[in-house]
């Protein structure tokens, strides 16, 4: 859907998007990163399971939430890439909360 225009002298970091390590420009949001990685959707809804992707890019719509470094419901448009960051598509309401062993 999107691509990044060529620019010189930009610092990069490596992040892991759905298990795949990629190099991206420092200072980019997670949303900009996944959109320019041809990621077509970033979450499924908790209600109907339908696919969603970033919509407003300015932090107001909460449609771009993803699982970032294991934490669900992180706004991809308001989170900035960091070295080694793990970025995953969020399925529904997110991860299991019961797993608390006695």
């Amino acid at each position: 859907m999107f691509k990044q225009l060529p620019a010189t002298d930009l610092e990069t970091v490596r992040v892991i998007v759905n298990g795949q390590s990629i190099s991206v420009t420092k200072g980019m949001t997670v949303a900009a990163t996944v959109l320019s990685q041809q990621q077509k959707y970033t979450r499924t809804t908790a209600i109907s399971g339908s696919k969603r992707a970033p919509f407003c890019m300015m932090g107001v719509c909460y449609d771009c939430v993803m699982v970032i470094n294991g934490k669900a419901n992180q706004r991809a448009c308001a989170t900035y890439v960091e070295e080694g960051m793990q970025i995953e598509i969020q399925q529904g309401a997110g991860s299991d909360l019961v797993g608390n062993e006695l």
Partner: protein
Amino acid sequence: MKDNYQLVIIGGGPAGLAAATTAANQGVCCALLDEQPTLGGQIYRAIESIPKQRTQQLGDEYTRGKPLVTAFRESDTEYYPETKVWSLNKQREIGVLYKDEARIIQADQVIVASGAMERPIPFKGWTLPGVMQAGAGQILFKSAGVVPDNGVVLAGSGPLLLLLAWQYLHAGVDVKALLDVTPLSNHLLALPKLPKALLAHHYLTKGIGYQIELKRAGIPLLFGVSDLRAEGEGYLQKVSFKHFGKQKNIESELLLTHFGVIPHAWLTQSADCKHQWDDSQQCWRPEHDEWGNTSLDGIIVAGDGAGIHGARSAEHAGRLAGLEALFALGIISQTERNKQGIQDRKWMKDERYIRPFLEAYFKIPQSLLATADNDTIVCRCEEVTAGQIRDAVKKGHDNSNQVKFFTRCGMGSCQGRQCSNAVAHIVADEKGESVEKMGHFRGRPPVAPLTLDQLACLNKELI
């Protein structure tokens, strides 16, 4: 971050920057809190870090942000980036999330410069991946140099669409079409407001210039478009619409829409400042006087968060708000405030000549504001359809808030930002009443979600 400030400014766009600079330069101890990591707001986003070549593609309105930011940097304002404000009350206690910890700080004066957000218009398919707001496209461009790589359809109404098309053209993006849904009847209605608009003719000339350039480049500009739909299985595959009665389709994996902007009034609403329905701007905005004073003592609004007047006007409003805070704090006299404000008041007035014309010309038609299609999702978070909203009205739920209680429309993560206006319009339409009477969702804090852990910090000692 201190526990107390004479003045806290919320928002680092043109209004906030100008307000902070004005106040700090006259000795006020003030802090500017901004959610973004960089200054400039959405309009001048990434202005300090953007590569030079990209600023040329974005045009000269964008570079106006530079001196504002420079002046701010030279002032003594304490600047807190990546800082979310999640609450504000009439005692001017400000709930702040800073470095992942919640705290409550106190201010003698607060300037809310929360800016604008895109007017959300629910239409068939608007939740599909591949449908985004035009502002989102601009933010991607400004902040990361990210642009569509496989073509884009632009649709909606308002000057931003033309600007974005022009910017994309200069960045080598394939703009497949620009679909203008502005009703052609608006042109006639806007005509009486044209003479006054000519006083701010640089906006008009610029708009016409963009159009000529786009046409020359062979980009189809379609006016009088209706029945806009986004279609596809799981993702956007095509944009369908009617043009002069004819059904048309354009295959595209990306559609950027724009239906004007509205004040981002969530903070002032949750603080319980009085808000009024602005019929010309088709939005709720906080009531305020010419200096930005709201109905609550010591809470001042400036910029698009107070009513949509654009970035240049926001700068002036910000300076006036800064002066008002100086006056309220007893640092300058009323006479001094008035004297220092003369130029900005004049320039602000000049800036606003264009507005009534633009508002009439780009007035969003009722068919878009209150969709008649019952299957269209209105609340993106809770996936509530227009039909469910209309059904709730039929069951005796008489206003926006009752419909919210019953349907959960507006109770999701975005806290109603994407559906509040549409719900009011649909309820009003169903009842045959005015939007104003239906009310907006009661502002419920926190205006930005807080985790339990972050909230628990409030009772811990913070450094």
